[in-house]
């Protein structure tokens, strides 16, 4: 019983432990397969090379922009729609809209038609192409809608009596207490944009606009070499390719691991609401 759980915890954590260890070790130890749990011959060479590579710097910058703008837009669009749809009795056609959205969870036009739409919009190779096609996730919308469903009607009613219109109620009464759902869904969107590969890969052409995941793939999977200048600037110690690749991976995963404790608090509840009610 506990052996099984212990084993599971181990195989979930060990890959990261190993990667961190190797990325911080010196080449001799790596070549001799001496690194298992902790760095041997600790040095930051790999990380120095990774950070000096201009591609990675640009990609990081791009990703941060995409995530910042994208999360804002996604939260705004999703939040507004979720709030409106939660007013089931008052909103005309609520049922109709709900079905329309549900249907998109099961059917889609496919990769090529979607690409053609993006192309016809003239936004290929722009930030919009990365952000807009997946601006709203039906799943997240349902979770937010369920959350707004629970909001006490009396508070909203008293707001309307005081003269607030729907936007007023939303802005002054509902949103201030919706911190939990806004953070959770916001983080869901942020992580999703941070991790996205396919959309940028399909819709972007300039290397200078590529986000982290696309560059990561270039480096680790396609093996494109690190800037030779960057490598030699750190001295002429031989750096093992694997150590570099692990360092690149760690660098792109660290932000996710960093926000993880924060998401963790809220999302279990969010997922449950979404699945039970949705």
């Amino acid at each position, binding site marked *: *019983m*506990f052996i099984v*759980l212990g084993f*599971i*915890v181990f195989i*979930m954590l060990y890959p990261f432990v*190993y990667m961190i260890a190797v990325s911080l070790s010196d080449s001799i130890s*790596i*070549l001799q*397969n001496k690194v298992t749990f902790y760095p041997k011959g600790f040095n930051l060479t790999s990380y120095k090379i990774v950070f000096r590579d201009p591609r990675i710097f640009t990609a990081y910058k791009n990703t941060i922009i995409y995530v910042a703008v994208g999360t804002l837009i996604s939260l705004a*669009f*999703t939040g*507004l729609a979720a709030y*409106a*749809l939660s007013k089931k009795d*008052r*909103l*005309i056609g609520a049922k109709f*809209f709900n079905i*329309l*959205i549900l249907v*998109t*969870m099961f059917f*889609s*036009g*496919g*990769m*090529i*038609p*979607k690409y*053609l*739409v993006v192309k016809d*919009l003239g936004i290929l190779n722009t930030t919009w192409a990365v952000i807009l096609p997946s601006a*709203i996730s039906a799943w997240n919308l349902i979770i937010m809608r369920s959350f707004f469903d629970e909001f006490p009607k009396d508070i909203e009613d008293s707001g309307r009596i005081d003269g607030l219109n*729907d*936007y007023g109620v939303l802005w002054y009464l509902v949103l201030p207490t919706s911190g939990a759902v806004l953070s959770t869904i916001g983080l869901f969107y942020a*992580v999703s944009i941070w*991790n996205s*590969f*396919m959309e940028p890969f399909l819709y972007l052409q300039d290397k200078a606009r590529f986000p982290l*995941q*696309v560059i*990561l*793939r270039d480096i*680790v*999977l396609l093996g494109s070499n690190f800037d030779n200048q960057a490598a030699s600037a750190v001295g002429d110690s031989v750096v093992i390719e*694997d150590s570099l*690749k*692990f360092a690149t*991976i760690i660098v792109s*995963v660290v932000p*996710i*691991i960093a926000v*993880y404790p924060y*998401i*963790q608090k809220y999302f279990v509840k969010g*997922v*449950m609401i979404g*699945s*039970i009610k949705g």
Partner: protein
Amino acid sequence: MKSDLSTPLGALQSPLKVKANAMWKKLNDSKLLLTMLIPAILYFAIFHYKPMYGVLIAFKDFKAFKGFDASPWVGLKHFRMFFSTPNAWRLVRNTFLLAANNIIWGFPAPIIFALILNEVKNTHAKKWVQTISYMPHFISTVVIVAMIDLFLSPRNGMINNMLVSLGFERIHFMAEAGWFRTVYVVSEIWQGLGWGAIIYLAALTNIDPQLYEAAMVDGATKIKQIIYITLPCLAPTITTLFLLRMGRVMSVGFEKVFLMQTPVIYETADVIQTFVYRQGMIQGNMSFATAIGLFNSVINIFFLIASNAIARKLNETSLW
């Protein structure tokens, strides 16, 4: 015209007028709410429904410079062409086998994990294990495949090093077609185990403990308790999640397969969607690619409807 039921004249107004007035009032009431919906409506219309309409190019000979309307209709030409290519069968087989393996091994895993975790009484430990188990879910596909590539590397990948120290030969996992499905499915389980278990764990806490107490009084073993109490109580959750899964069955995680494959292992690793990608995005055969993609979606829908019907017959849970 207001319908006022308190006056004799108002009460005489026809039900239809009453309904129309009510609707008009509702529309008026919803004005602002509807404006809130506008971004979402636009989004779904442009990025989900317009492509659905665009799927029609599967039945045309679409040429980008001609545009949609000027491109001629060709009926089922692309479908016929696809099925006459030598690789059509291989693609369908690979897609199906990958999806099937993924479900057969991947679907029960979180359930079993949830069942085991549920037995842990120490809530502190339970929480820690859970927290650690969700983490892989947030790792991107690129990182997962990169990790797979590096750990399974024949030169000095961690796994191969282990094999050698145990006296086995090195295996070039990523270059042998026979290993592809295993690597794919195992990594899927690794990534999805914790996250998938969340819902089951939540459902498990909803089972009345008195049922277990009664069973223990009757002398039921742990296994018997699981079979006769836990699983039946979980059945609705399991069914619903299974149906949702079937809804995406043939869209075998394209991104991951794409990142994992190389022409060397196309024999097992080339699936319908990756072929669609090459045909459409690289070779520019838009209509042909869309047709095959449509074929993929149709199979998907078929599986979804079939499983929903079966679920409805077997127990009361179904999506519709």
